[in-house]
Every structure is written in C-alpha cells, then in structure tokens.
C-alpha cells in the first residue's frame, strides 16, 4: 500500500512527526532544509561576516548540523566562516572513536577543526576522573566541564557564535527535566533559541524545532557518517526516565515535542516576580559565569585535586564549608560589600581557571563559618555576588600569604591554553603559583570580555 508524497507524485518515504504528512526523499530534504533555514532567518541567528563554531561530537545531531550549516551557508549565502569545534573528554573507546568521525567530517565538509581536551584544560581526562570517583556522579563532571570547554575552545578560535545540535526532542526533554528538578532558572532559559547574549559567546540551536526522528532520517537517507555509540560512562537512569516518558508521549500524540516546547516558552515568561532567581555572577576563581561564588567547575576541580572528589557533588554549602568559603555567606547577607573576604589563608582563587593549591590551611576557619547551616538556598548566596566579585582584587593581593602547596596539583597549571587564549601569554610552564599581575590581568580579561552563560539549558 504505497503512500504517495504529499507534495509530488513520487512514493512517500517517511511520515513527518510534526505534521503527520507523508513525503518522498527529495521533498523531505527540501522541507527539512527549508525549515532549518527558516528557523535561522526568522530568529536572526547570524549576521553576515560572522565566524561560527559548530560544536561537533561526531554524533547524529552535530553531524547533520555541520552538513546543514555548510549547505545553507553556501545555498543562501549567509556569508559565515565556519569551524568545527570538538571537545575531547578523554574517554577511551568512546570519544577517541567519535573524534575520528569528526575528523572524517572535517575532510568531507572541508571545515577547519579545533579540538580542546579536558586533559589540557583541566589536567584530568574523564577516564582519570572516573577512576577517582567511580561511575556514580561522573556525568556531573563531564557536563560541567564540557560547557566551559566549548566556550574556551570557541574563544581560542575567536568565533562570534557557537551552534549546537540540540534538537526539539532535547529541548523538550530539558523542559521536563527542569520541572522535575525544580530548577526554575534553567526552566526559564532552556527554551531560548539563543542563550548567553550578554557579553558571552552566544550559543544557538538551529535545530530547536527539528525533531530527532527527522534528523536521524536525514542522516540515514543522506548516508551521513556519524558515530552512534552511547557514552560508556553514561548510565544516567534519571534522565532515561524523562526520555522514555517523552517518547511515550510522542507515541500518544505526535506533536507532543512541539507542545512541550510551547509550554516551556510560555512558562519562561510567567515566573512569579517574587520568586528568587539566582543572579548570574562570575566565579571568583576563574571568571566563568556562576551563580555561586565559585563556579561548579572550579569546585569540582578543587575536589579532584584535593583528593575529595565528592566535594562538588551534593549540597553547595557543604562544598563551601570544605573550601572555607562559608563565612562569606554568613557575613555578607548582613554586611554587604563591607564584609571581609573569607579565609585569608585561602588565596588560591587568584589563578584563573586552575585550581592549584591545597587550601587545607583554611580548615581551621570552619568554625566561624558554621553560622549558615540554613543558607542552602542558592538565592541567598546570589545577593552577595556583586560585592564578591569586587573583592577579587583583594584576594589576589593577599596571594603572597598563601602557603600554596603545589604538590596536590594534578598536571600542569590546568588551563594554560585558556589562559593563553585570553591574555596572549604562554604560561604553560608557569607553576601554579602564577604571578599575581598576570593572574589579575587574566581576571580582568575574563571579567570584561565575557560572562559565559550557563548553557546547560
């Protein structure tokens, strides 16, 4: 019982989930490409002359995205310079294989490729991290690190925009996840087609309205070369539930994905005014955008380097306690910008991106930080961020006092590449006790040039 294409006389090859209509291969290509083009133009994602990094993992979405960006850029003369940007998490048997796919894509699409690795940025590969912490929370590390890694890679390339392969199913899934997690701030952001427009490198999702099924079909019919193995470290059961729910919903009502995105868009404008939202500040240590004093990556890295890998997992205030940061919370909520910076012996924050020294010196200060056991509400902490940031200089000044203990440092100064990209100096060999001036310069560069958004939509 052949069904004929809704647009021409040929035989239909697939049923579109979005509309229920049947299309032949050629018409499907046309409609698929036209829709992505329409998304790009109607949301004004790019300007002529911009350089754009395509986040490429070798998987289906990013492979189709690279193919389409190249195609549409030529067909509609967007006037964009395109790069492929990959993150090497250091997962043997998974990422090394998928990177091969990306390298083949590079050849096929004749696009320059940049690979940034966790090892060079953080001093740790995911394999090493998993050896430390086991399989339970490794995805938290990977997710947090990847977000920053993409941004840093993009900065090294000097691009104007990053495009990611997040498709409609991903956006819908994230809406569901954020509701289940009660994360109202992310819920508000996650349906935006462009995130991080203020001073950061904006990220765009040209596939926001593109169904996963159509991406897979497109890749299959076009015989695109993609890598399709699940990450060996990702047994993320909870997200799996959400995903299964989504697929089940889709089988009940095929428009569910778009309906959920619609709901998400509506909800993003209807958050009550009196709901406390985390204000985006910047990490006191590395300058990356953060809603806490230290960004998640720095806390996680600190934990790894100190042999306390669980540090960043769990309640934020516990990590603060362990880092000797807590008393800032206790005092700042009342004294505002006049507060003293926390433990003076803990001056490790002066080094951008890298977490290098043992802060055990500040453990003795835990006593005075016990006054905020209730301050777990991240919103409370947000209020102090402004003042917090203003004291960064002071922290740097006290750096000399730090009994910086470099033996706990794992690998070289973790983010030398990032630093190089930012300040232009090659301090790959600089020991962890970076020169103060440099550190401050970097800090300034970070503070001014970007406030990298939280893109984990």
């Amino acid at each position, binding site marked *: 019982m052949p069904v004929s294409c809704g647009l021409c006389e040929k035989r239909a090859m697939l049923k579109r989930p979005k509309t229920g209509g049947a299309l032949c291969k050629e018409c499907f290509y046309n409609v698929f490409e036209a829709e992505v083009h329409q998304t790009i133009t109607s949301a004004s994602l790019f300007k002529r002359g911009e350089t754009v990094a395509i986040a490429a993992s070798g998987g289906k979405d990013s492979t189709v995205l690279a193919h389409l960006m190249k195609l549409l850029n030529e067909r509609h003369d967007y006037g964009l310079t395109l790069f492929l940007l990959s993150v090497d998490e250091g997962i043997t048997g998974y990422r090394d294989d998928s990177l091969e796919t990306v390298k083949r894509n590079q050849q096929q699409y004749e696009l320059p490729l940049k690979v940034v690795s966790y090892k060079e940025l953080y001093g740790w590969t995911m394999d090493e991290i998993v050896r430390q912490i086991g399989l339970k929370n490794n995805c938290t590390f990977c997710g947090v690190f990847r977000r920053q890694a993409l941004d840093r890679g993009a900065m090294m390339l000097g691009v104007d925009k990053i495009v990611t392969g997040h498709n409609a199913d991903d956006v819908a899934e994230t809406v569901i996840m954020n509701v289940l997690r009660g994360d109202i701030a992310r819920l508000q952001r996650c349906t935006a087609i462009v995130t991080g427009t203020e001073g950061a490198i904006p990220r765009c999702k040209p596939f926001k309205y593109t169904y996963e099924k159509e991406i897979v079909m497109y890749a299959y019919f076009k015989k695109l070369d993609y890598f399709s193995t*699940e*990450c060996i470290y990702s047994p993320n059961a909870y997200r799996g539930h959400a995903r299964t729910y989504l697929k089940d919903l889709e089988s009940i009502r095929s428009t569910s994905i778009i309906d959920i995105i619609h709901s998400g868009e509506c909800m993003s404008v209807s958050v009550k005014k009196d709901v406390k939202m985390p204000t985006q500040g910047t990490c006191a240590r590395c300058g990356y955008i953060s809603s806490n004093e230290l960004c998640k990556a720095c806390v996680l890295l600190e934990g790894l380097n100190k042999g306390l890998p669980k540090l960043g997992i769990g309640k934020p205030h516990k990590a603060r306690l362990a880092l000797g940061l807590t008393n800032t919370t206790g005092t700042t909520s009342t004294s505002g910008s006049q507060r003293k910076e926390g433990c003076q012996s803990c001056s490790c924050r002066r080094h951008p991106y890298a977490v290098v020294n043992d802060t055990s010196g500040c453990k003795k200060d835990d006593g005075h930080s016990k006054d905020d056991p209730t301050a777990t509400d991240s919103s409370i902490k947000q209020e102090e961020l402004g003042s917090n940031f203003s004291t960064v200089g002071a922290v740097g000044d006290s750096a000399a006092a730090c009994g910086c203990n470099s033996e706990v440092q794992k690998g070289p100064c973790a983010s030398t590449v990032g630093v190089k990209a930012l300040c232009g100096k090659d301090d790959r060999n600089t020991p962890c006790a970076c020169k103060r001036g440099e550190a401050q310069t970097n800090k300034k560069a970070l503070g001014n040039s970007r406030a990298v958004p939280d893109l984990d939509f």
Partner: protein
Amino acid sequence: MLSKSKVTVSMANSVNICLEFSGGAELLFDMVKKHDVSLPGNSQPWTIKSLLVWIKENLLKERPELFVQGDTVRPGILVLINDVDWELMGELEYQLEENDRIVFISTLHGG
C-alpha cells in the same frame, strides 16, 4: 534467549529477509549490523509483529526491553521497511515479503 541462529531451512512460504540495526541498536545484537535471515515457514504470514517476537527469541543477545516493549519496538527506535517509514506501511501489521529489508535505527544514543 541465546538460542543459536536457526539453521536456514527452505520451506514453502518461508521468507528470506535482511535485517539491519544501526544508530546504536546493533549493540543489542553483538554489534552485528546486518543479518540475513530466513524466517521459517509459518501457518500465518509473517508480519513485523511476529518478526519482533522472532527477533526477540532468536537474535537478541541482551536486554530485550531495550528493543521491544509490549508487542512493539521500544519508543525511539525507527523502523524502515525497504527504506520507507514503517508508519506508512501499516507498522506492526505489515506483511513481510521475500527479500524485504527491515532497518531498525535507534535514536536514543548520543548526539
């Protein structure tokens, strides 16, 4: 579940078809993507529905729930019959014909 592949027996109304698993679905089949199989003669014509039962009993190496749920494929696995979306072919009720190529693509892995 780990029964050895059925010996190919030529019977009246047995059907030779080609099965392909990709997008990660091959993981459940010992990483073998392409399977040329001969479905034994049957009193009823072979359908996708009965094929799934056959696959579950004869080909699936591990965790059948990741491939079949109830009497159909797990949500998120695309089925193509001779490169045509199975939704256009009657889904589970489609009757298999000689030399049909059935492709199962998982959409659930990576991106």
